[in-house]
């Protein structure tokens, strides 16, 4: 009953409360609504334009300014070395900062400043534990679309480690001894270098630069590693020439060879003696499905009676390495190395070393390392460097 009464009441009241508007009223309402729609559309377009402008301003706010053209990076590594025949060590082995600046699309600056072994002590005889070193300070100019000229202090284009030695890029806590003792990495000089790509995947470097100055007395006489002057008031009487060809035209493959000629590795240190030197290095590396195989060989030939008498007219070494990434974070490796800085001698002077270990990447640029070293010195040497190493490294 109640529903019936309510329906009747509505039916009577409806024509009074909701009388149909006239056609004119409806036309006016439609026109007003159309105006409102146009106004809202314009407002929405204005809002879109403001948002776009804000986004564009935000995205371009950092481009082209000094900060965006200046880069800072670096790398570092801490080592723990356990030796069977001597005291264990912990070492803040390297702490490196890179600073670079892009002056223009074709002109840039790059530098690398390094503290080695944690402490640079100002001692009278220079016997402090560490070193503060300027490893690179160069200007690079793209003088043509595919070629650049590098002027200043640069890393010699030789081997694998010399130019790329951030700790997250290689296996083993310590850098391999063949490249350290024979190449000798890390090695930089001052001069001029042209480099570029001549065919897809085939690149070249040609450089004229300062040379080695090896000691001419003592146990380090004519040792190439001891001859690095590090561009520190370096004697530049005798320059050196380096050329490298590198092929990386197949994914995962690198083939490279370097040749260097030095007129006098002692910079005239042995009067009346021709101590010209030449270095030849070649390496191959192939990576497929997590497996990487590497082989590298290097050899110095040094002229002169002194070098021949010491057996240092030939200094050479080689290593082979196999590594496998079990997961993107975990890799294992084994490396067999042989090197001899007295290879011209008839005595047994060759050193062998077997390294086995793992890398675990906490991040793709932060790595933990552990490896075991089986060091086999020449038969005339009583002690060896067997032991194990732990390392922590990073780059950014």
């Amino acid at each position, binding site marked *: 009953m109640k529903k019936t009464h309510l329906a009747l009441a509505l039916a009577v009241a409806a024509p009074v409360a909701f009388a149909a508007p006239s056609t004119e009223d409806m036309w006016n309402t439609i026109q007003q609504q159309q105006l409102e729609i146009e106004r809202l559309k314009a407002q929405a377009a204005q809002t879109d334009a403001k948002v776009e402008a804000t986004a564009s301003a935000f995205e371009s706010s950092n481009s082209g300014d000094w900060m965006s053209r200046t880069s800072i990076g670096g790398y570092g590594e801490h080592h723990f070395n356990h030796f069977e025949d001597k005291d264990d060590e912990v070492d803040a082995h390297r702490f490196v900062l890179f600073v670079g600046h892009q002056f223009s699309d074709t002109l840039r600056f790059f530098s690398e400043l390094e503290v080695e072994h944690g402490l640079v002590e100002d001692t009278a005889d220079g016997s402090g534990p560490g070193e503060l070193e300027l490893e690179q300070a160069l200007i690079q100019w793209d003088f*043509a*679309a595919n070629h650049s000229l590098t002027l200043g202090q640069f890393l010699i284009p030789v081997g694998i480690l010399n130019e790329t030695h951030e700790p997250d*890029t290689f296996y083993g806590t310590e850098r391999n001894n063949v490249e350290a003792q024979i190449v000798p990495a890390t090695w930089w000089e001052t001069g001029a270098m042209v480099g*570029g790509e001549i065919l897809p995947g085939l690149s070249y470097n040609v450089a004229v630069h300062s040379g080695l100055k090896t000691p001419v007395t003592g146990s380090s006489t004519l040792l190439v590693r001891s001859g690095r002057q590090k561009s520190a008031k370096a004697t530049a009487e005798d320059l050196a020439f380096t050329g490298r060809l590198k092929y*990386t035209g197949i994914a995962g493959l690198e083939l490279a060879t370097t040749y260097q*000629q030095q007129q006098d590795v002692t910079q005239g240190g042995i009067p009346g003696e021709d101590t010209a030197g030449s270095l030849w290095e070649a390496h191959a590396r192939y990576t497929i499905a997590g497996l990487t195989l590497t082989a590298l060989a290097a050899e110095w030939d040094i002229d002169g009676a002194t070098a021949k008498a010491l057996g240092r007219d030939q200094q050479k070494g080689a290593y082979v390495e196999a590594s496998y990434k079990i997961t993107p974070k975990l890799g294992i490796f084994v490396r067999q190395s042989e090197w001899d800085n007295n290879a011209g001698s008839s005595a047994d002077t060759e050193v062998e070393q077997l390294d086995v270990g793992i890398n675990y990447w906490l991040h793709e640029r932060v790595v933990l390392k552990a490896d075991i070293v089986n060091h086999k010195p020449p038969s005339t040497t009583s002690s060896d460097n067997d032991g194990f190493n732990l390392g922590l490294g990073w780059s950014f």
Partner: protein
Amino acid sequence: MRILKSSCALGSLSSLFSRLGLARSPRAAVLAFLCCLLLPVSVMARGTYLTVPEFVSSTFRGSEPPLKTLWLSGELQQRLHKVFGHPYKSLRLRYWQQDAKSAWVLEEIGKELPITLGVVVNGASIEQIRILTYRESRGGEVRHPFFTEQFEGAQLGADDTLDRQIDGITGATLSVRAVTRVAEAALVLAAAVADKDAVQ
């Protein structure tokens, strides 16, 4: 060497060669000569290889679809953050779309400078990846087809990573990583657009 010394300029060259020891080293001289011969043969190692209009035109064979905008909302920005390992610098991205094919222009830093890439996604797979501009001083080999062809047909696997192994280039590790991350990001973005289109 006497012939070289007969002219002043060539005499200087002779002196330099002698100073470098090249006169006594046939192997070094041959290597230097070969390098000089190869210098004029050029392909670009650093610079712009393809402009954005050229990339779009070649992707859609001249019938360029209208430019669209994808705003990087919270969830999408989070996925990109995970792919790149850092927040992506843009608030929105422009892209071109025709049916299931979309083309993206993205940037990522290798070691120091941004690499600009063009990625074409068709459905849920990468159809093509091109290096548009390369600015780093090392690692430019990533622009070559022997490397970029590895991405063709790649799809998203678990955790927004590619469903396949990409073989790297020695000495170009950081550039290889940058290209791989951009490939993953393009697939994430194309999937987001597909989801948005499905809802609409």
